[in-house]
């Protein structure tokens, strides 16, 4: 897996942790997409006030790639992630997760699937305040009733630069450190896919860069599949592929995205939406604008 040419180089003085030691099995390479959405529809509410968050979305995410899902607020990008990861259920359509159709799963099956195969990184970190960093990292395994592989845990912690913070509570950690604990938690089960929902939204620019860099390295050196939802073009630039959402639909699918390119795309999208809104106001029966 070649490193993406769009990954920003580390600024002087920053030492980024070495992730090469985290060598995941290369079996994740072949055998179809990591996760695939087929004709996905998600509606909230019914009748006139229904919100169509996802309108017949079809998309496949390859293994071992870093994919960004972009779009303005309310575009449906977060909804897509929720449905893909089994946090929410679809109104219709299918989600094939490593070949299994998870739209047929009940709550318990979804939970178990998430526990073993999915890692989550949230915008607001979502660590449990009454547990130490180490306990937080091991939480998915604790829930499964398994003891964590101590070596693996410490390796993760070391490579994420938080080994000396393991006995601290979240209240005693900085934002960046908390997010790194969250990343470790996401990785402790060797998950099939890592979902990151606006991972840098609550971080300052330096911590943001660190976290994004780590995600990048994760993909490059261990073949981890990462799907990141973001509205930040700069963050999207770290990815191998960027999908742009608008109004419940995919309106752009870009390989090797750049910051400027994605920025321009999003602005254009906004302009098109505003125009459509204006013309809709003038002539309500005009068809939907956009691609």
């Amino acid at each position, binding site marked *: 897996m070649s490193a993406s040419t769009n990954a920003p180089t580390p600024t002087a003085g920053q030492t980024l942790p070495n992730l090469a030691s985290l060598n995941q099995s290369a079996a994740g390479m072949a055998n179809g997409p990591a996760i695939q959405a087929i004709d996905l529809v998600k509606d909230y509410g019914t009748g006139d006030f229904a919100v169509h968050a996802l309108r017949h979305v079809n998309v496949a995410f390859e293994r071992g790639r870093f994919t960004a899902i972009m779009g303005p607020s309310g575009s449906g990008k977060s909804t897509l992630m929720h449905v893909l990861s089994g*946090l929410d259920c679809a109104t219709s359509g299918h989600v094939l997760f490593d070949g299994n159709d998870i739209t047929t799963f009940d709550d318990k099956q979804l939970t178990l699937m998430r526990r073993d195969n999915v890692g989550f990184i949230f915008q607001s970190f979502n660590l449990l305040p009454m547990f130490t960093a180490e306990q937080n990292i091991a939480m998915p395994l604790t829930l499964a009733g398994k003891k964590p592989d101590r070596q693996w845990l410490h390796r993760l912690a070391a490579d994420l630069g938080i080994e000396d913070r393991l006995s601290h509570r979240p209240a005693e950690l900085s934002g960046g450190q908390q997010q790194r604990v969250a990343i470790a938690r996401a990785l402790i089960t060797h998950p099939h896919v890592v979902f990151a929902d606006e991972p840098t939204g609550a971080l300052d620019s330096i911590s943001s860069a660190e976290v994004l860099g780590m995600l990048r390295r994760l993909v490059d050196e261990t073949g981890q599949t990462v799907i990141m939802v973001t509205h930040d073009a700069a963050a999207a630039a770290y990815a191998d592929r960027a999908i742009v959402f608008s109004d419940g639909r995919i309106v752009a699918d870009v390989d090797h995205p750049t910051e400027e390119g994605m920025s321009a795309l999003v602005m254009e999208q906004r302009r098109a939406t505003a125009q459509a809104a204006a013309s809709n106001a003038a002539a309500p029966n005009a068809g939907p604008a956009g691609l």
Partner: protein
Amino acid sequence: MWSITRGMMKRSRRTLVPAGIAIAIASLFISATLLLGNVLDAQSVKQFTAEYGNAEYSATPDYPASPSYQSDGDVPTLASTGLEDIASVNGVSDVRYSGTEPVIASAGAASSASSAASSGYSASGIEVSTKAGIMPIDLADGSWPSKPGEAALDSDLASKLGVSVGGTVSLVSTAVDSAAADDAAAVSPLVVRVTGLTDDPHEQYSLAGGSVTLAADDIVELERQNLLAIGTPQSDVDSFTHGDITASAVYFSLDSGMSDSQKNDAIGQIRSKLRSVTVTSRTDAADAYLRKLNGGGVNPVVAAILVFAILAMFVAALVIANTFRVLVTQRRRTLALLRTIGASKGQVHRSVLTEGVVLGLEYSALGTALAYAIVAILAAAKVQGIELIPSASSILVPIVFATLITVLASSGAARLATSVTPMEALRPIDATEKAGIKAARAVVSVLLLAGGLALCLSAVRMAGRISPSSNDYATPLLMAVPGCILVFIGLVMSTQAWIPWLLSGLGRLVSLTGASGTIAAANIRKNPRRIAATSGALLIGITLVATVATGASCASATVNRELDSHYSVDASITEVAADPAQIGQVKALDGVSDAQGIAAYAVTLSAKGTVPDISDADDAQSYTAMYVIPDSAIGSVVSDTFGTRHLEDGVVYVSDAMHTTKPNTTPDVRTGDSLGMVVTSTRSDQDSLYATAFEGGDVSTIPQAQTTLPVRTASFAIGDDDCSLAISEGTARSLGIDPGRHDIWIGVDKNADASDLIDRLTTLTRDFNGSNLTGAFIFRKMFDTVIDIAMKAMLALLSVAVIIALVGVANTLSLSVIERQRESATLRAIGMTSGQLRASLAWESVLISVGAGLAGLVTGGFFGWVGAVTLLTGTSVAFAPNWAIYGGIVLLSLVAALLASVLPARRATKVPPVVALADAD
């Protein structure tokens, strides 16, 4: 601000429901208790004024100052009551005096007084009022007697006699029954015709057998019969008149058409005619009686129950305080916003207090209304004489009290609300509570604990040294009660310090069960203050329950042990033939665990301790029984209190109570001394050597043996005197004569139905021609029942407080769930199943409840034991933990905890993880 408060209240309506329920329950309790008090008072008054009948006034002479007082020794007579004078006053419509004549009534016309007396029933003769209008009993059928020879009979008495209106009844004074033969012969029975039947709704004469209402002359006649029967000379009998009848008060009523001033005039006349007479109206008498009864305050029964009601209110206050605290904590953002846009601290403070007032008013009104509804339903269903007697106090007291308590309880939260800074609107501070308690509070608690414990322990020590007859017997209890209260207050004040520690210890155990337990234990650690408050409320209720239960079981065990030493045999049929078939019959009875035939000798002892000399008139002697007890009897039909299961041969066992019971006629012997006795072979008391000698019979015809035996004293008592002696079968054989008396000793099952068994044993005793059935087990059963009923009553009253506390647990849990939505969602996202989430909530609830339960059991057990020891001074009290109730408490806490977690768990798992994770997008 009021509209904003209203808005906030509307939103928090649901969260405050459990707290409201707590208030409602406590108010219901108070209101119902006060209503009950009204009923009790009304019943007492009705009972007291029943004697008035329909009369409105009573006139009582002021003994002995009244100048018209013509007494016959100390007995007031009718003439002294001034009945004639009162009757002569203008406006007095009807007069009656209080006085009864004990009679024996028999059906039909009796031939002689003695035959009337032996075949009749006891009754109470009363005189009809002058106009037959103000009788204290009701006329059910027929008419009142209008002249001598007529009588109105109580309906029940009439049916017992088998007569009805128009029938004939013979009356004799009760004295005839016990009169000497020739005195009784001088009496001729009074024959009357039954003109009416009466009812006695207030049961004034039911104890005496029922009333017989007669004309004045007949009452005089019965009095004369009484005098004749006791041997009074005929001349005195003839001079007995109506005015000589024993009477204590006069009841009268005034004409119905009189105005108030006319009434006052009439009463004034009466007062002037009879100096030193107190005229009281019925209503005044009732009020005065009520005041005296309740000591100027509340009915003592009501006061006792109110104590429990106040306790329940106190527990409710804890729940409310906790709820408001949590509410304010959750509302921090809103409060901060209000402060930012201009609300002052005072306004915020008042807003919380207002919410408290409204909540208190609402739910206490609800509780009071419910109390009225319940009493109304019970009254309509005619349960046990309950009436709905509304009163201002039963409405105002619960509402005002509950509202005040609610406001007080919410004041802590109100103060917390003022500490919210406007800054928090912009950047919310995750309010984490810290464990631990303020230094001042800690110091006070420790002092209280130490002081209280010292009081309790010294009270216990004192109780052991005091005998129950000394004047100080109440002192240990008076020391122990405040001691326990101090300890309790100290514990409750310091819950913040030790409950989190206790629960985290238990939490560690729970963590071992898996992820759910770990999460639950961690959540408990997160909010130590709130959890301690919740647990504390439950602790109060459970401690009290454990105290009552332990106290009762210690008392019961001690009483039983004392009974055992005073009644070594459960039951025995005395002086029967030695017949194995009879023993078999007894053994076959339900409830009998064993029955054995026990032989006994009659023994004469001398106060000197040597062999008594029957002919020596100066030798103080006593008679007692000496039982031959085989090994098989010890433990099965007689208590194992001899110190051995095999009585030694050649030795006599003496009850250690013998000398104390008969100090003048028995020697004071101890183990190692020797006791001389004359042993005879007789069946009963009457044949004993001693009795025979007393009656002047020939003692040499009775088989006897003289012996002196070494003594062993033991704690046993057989028969109704505590002077028992016991020997082994071997010793009996060595005496050389056969025992003449045989008893059947019976061991009774603990759970036997006492009244049933007594009936059957009584029948057998009659059948076997036995002399006596003595049954110690009746006493045991009686004590146990009394203690049991008292305990159950108190537990029932305490259960209200416990229920409120459990509502508090459910409340805290559901509030915490709301707070933890984000965390729960995270856990669900990373793989916690809803089953695991529900389990963690259940564990949390269980930890809080069982933690409080265990602490309460230990504390309550201690208090109960201290209470029992200091109550039963002078006796060594057995510590008998009531494992059944303890187990019940723990089980109940467990079940209640699980139930309490159901609704919060449902709320927690209903929301899909994604909704709670959603950030402001």
